């Protein structure tokens, strides 16, 4: 029986490899996704990185030379020219009684005028607010010192934060995306192949020919699943290698974390993803056989792919982790993220979900095999 499957597997792989263009089409995702993501992130980083100099409008600046000088020392300067490209629509209005209030020890009003719904402006507003808060507390401390009071009295609590994160684990959301793109490869890399080998084979009328041989339909299905999984794994290896090369090129350190794809992670990932690849292939084969035509199969498979994507996203966005971490794909994704962060791997969850994944694979394969016994399915009636 093993021999039969071997021969069938060879046949499927050969069939698939003949159409080099569609094999490559599947791999485009594996190559393109990490590169695209790195390009996007690099652009995002440029936006996030606070520019060296921020120019704002300061009204009544002559009333608060100290504040203006302090802001200038934090690289927040007053624009001399209305058309300065660095000028942001942030206005700081210093009240007329600023000097008087300050010298009398009353809070002196400074009004910050800006549109907070403007996302691009948010970080600049924060920067101005932070710089002003520093100035305010510095003046307040000196007021206490000049009255003979230790300014530390203002700090009733010394709050120390012990952040257990490491630079590798601080990536959070971005790390989730990285792992998501890796897991999705298993589905995308062999999608066209899965449809071609099932719905396609039926349309080319070679499926009935295959079934006319003295073979069990389960053998045929298993061979197809195996071949598709092999191409999925090829896609996985490609995306891991591409990721390892391109992710270090992004200046993550500016955001305070790093993303390192180690050889250990690559091996771990291959081991964990093999069951998912088998499950994904059997699922796609099953769905393709269910469809009546090639076109229909394409639509269905695309729809069905939403399920693993959703499971993976749930982990990425950290929704309902307590329940979801036991589900297939979600659990594997979680384990991969923990591995990359250097945290202990949730072994029970991983084992259970891997088991479920394999059971699902068996169920889909069995169902496909049963369907192939029906003439309705075989001839797409």
């Amino acid at each position, binding site marked *: 029986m093993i021999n039969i499957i071997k021969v069938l597997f060879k046949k499927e792989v050969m069939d698939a490899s003949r159409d080099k263009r569609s094999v490559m089409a599947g791999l485009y995702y594996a190559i393109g996704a990490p590169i695209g993501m790195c390009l996007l992130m690099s652009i995002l980083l440029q936006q996030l990185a606070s520019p060296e100099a921020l120019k704002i409008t300061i009204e009544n600046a002559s009333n608060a*030379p100290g504040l203006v000088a302090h802001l200038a020392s934090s690289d927040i300067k007053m624009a001399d020219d209305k058309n300065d490209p660095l000028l942001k629509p942030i206005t700081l209005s210093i009240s007329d009684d600023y000097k008087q209030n300050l*010298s009398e020890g009353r809070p002196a009003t400074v009004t910050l005028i800006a549109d907070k719904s403007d996302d691009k402006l948010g970080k600049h507003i924060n920067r101005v607010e932070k710089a002003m808060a520093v100035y305010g507390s510095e003046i307040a401390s000196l*007021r206490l010192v000049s*009255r003979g*009071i230790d300014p530390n009295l203002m700090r009733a609590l010394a709050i120390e*934060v012990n952040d257990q994160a490491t630079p590798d684990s601080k990536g959070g959301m971005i790390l989730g995306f990285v792992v998501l793109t890796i897991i999705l490869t298993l589905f995308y890399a062999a999608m066209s192949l899965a449809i071609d080998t099932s719905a396609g084979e039926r349309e080319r009328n070679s499926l009935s020919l295959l079934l006319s041989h003295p073979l069990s339909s389960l053998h045929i299905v298993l061979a197809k699943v195996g071949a598709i999984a092999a191409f999925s794994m090829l896609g996985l290896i490609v995306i891991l290698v591409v990721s390892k090369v391109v992710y270090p090129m992004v200046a993550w*350190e500016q955001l305070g974390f790093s993303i390192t794809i180690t050889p250990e992670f690559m091996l771990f990932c291959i081991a964990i993803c093999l069951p998912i690849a088998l499950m994904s292939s059997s699922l796609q084969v099953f769905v393709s056989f269910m469809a009546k035509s090639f076109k229909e199969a394409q639509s269905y498979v695309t729809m069905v792919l939403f399920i693993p994507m959703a499971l993976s996203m749930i982990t990425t966005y950290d929704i309902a982790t307590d329940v979801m971490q036991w589900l297939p794909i979600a659990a594997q994704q979680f384990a991969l993220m923990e591995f990359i962060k250097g945290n202990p791997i949730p072994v029970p969850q991983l084992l259970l979900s891997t088991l479920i994944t394999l059971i699902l694979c068996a169920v889909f394969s069995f169902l496909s095999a049963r369907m192939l016994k029906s003439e309705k399915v075989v001839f797409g009636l």
Partner: protein
Amino acid sequence: MKSTSEYRNRLIKLAILPFLIVNSAISQGQENDNNPVELTPCYMEGLSDRLMCGSIAQPLSDNPADGEIDIHFAVIPAIKPSNPEEAVLGFAGGPGQGAVDLAQVFNRNLRFARETLDIVLVDQRGTGYSKQLQCDSDDLKTQFAFNDAITDLQTMSKQDTEQCKAKLNVDLSHFTTSAAAKDFEAVRVALGYKGFHLYGVSYGTRIAQEYTRQFPASVITSTLDGVVPMQQSFAAIGEAIDASLQALFERCESDAACNEQFPRLEIRFNEFLARLEQQPIEAQVRHPRTHEMIPFTVTKMKFYSAIRLALYSHTTRSIVPLVITKAAQDDFSPLAGLMANADLTQSLAMGMHNAVVCSEDWPQLTPQLRTKYSSTYMGKTMIEGLDIVCPILEVKPADKAFYKPLKSDKPTLLLSGARDPATPPSWAELAMTNMADATHLVAPTATHGIGSQTCAPKIIAQFIEQKSMQDIDTYCIKDKNDKPFFMNINGVANTHLTPATNKE
């Protein structure tokens, strides 16, 4: 007044003020696979990032009978390690500050360098967690009440020093700069780094230079911030203090508002000092923290020392005219506030501090140098302090070779602040006489340790990355970074208002 036993080290502390890093920090790198030391996660004050701490046992001296000393260190891990075989080694100042406790400051000054390199902080022997040699110190109330102008001060200081010596009960000769350099090398070997980029601040520049001399192969680049030249005794600091204070007086005089609010500041300052020299003032102030009325004996040494410490940071510099003017008008609250704020001696390991200065700075004082340095008040006070402490502590004097300027071909970046009250730019010029590849940058308005001022952190990171100062734009170092003076007790003065509303 209190019994003499309570006055331990008062004189030493007030007079021998060290080259402090006002802001320093330590960090620890990453776990190293083949590394024989066990690193455990740890956290330091003011820094939420997880560091890795560890320690190695080092022989205390060449004589095995002296036993071992545990040298503690911390690694601030790089965010994205691009070259795990290199790290930045931070040296703290003092002498006597522990580098590990200053992790926050090192992390801030080296934040750009840390993006790709680990930062290693080692508590030099005798400081921090490495067998800190600390003498007892007075609480604030005792310090405030103490009259250091009394005649038997010498006897008291001797008693304090002897008590401290008995308490430490160790040969201080094992805690000098040249003895400590070997510990840093042992840490490098233990952590498996091929080489270090040195970053020393203040006294840290002396140990950095000594480390370069003993282990040139381990040094990739060297950044010296607030440079102490090997050939110069720190007793020369008196001139730097006076120059820094002079710069402040001149700035106030040239500022119309300051000159109006605090006229004749320098004259007032000198008049007040003369008055204190004649007779200390017995006053009462509120305790800066408990608000209880406590006696405050204002002496010349206390006043001068408080002003001197205030010169280190621009924030405190901005209230110096106010403090001087108020004190001259017999209002000592601002002075008390300044002294409460400058409670630095507790973090300083005075035993280790004395080991270094008595071995390296005191023996170097020739009669000519004594005369020269004694021309300034702080210089004179320090020499007097050393003359009491050092004969008792009996630390072995440093070798003649120790005082030779460092001969090095390593890429070296020297940083100075023109208003530095401890290590002025001229000291860096002295230090670099025999350095083949040295660049000296002076920030015109900066004070001590410019790594936490101006744009120096970026320049330091670029220098470390490309291992040379070539093509690095250093123009931003010239940016002004001083702060406007505090014109009245609430901050800015409104000169058009009657000052009556500002009365305390």
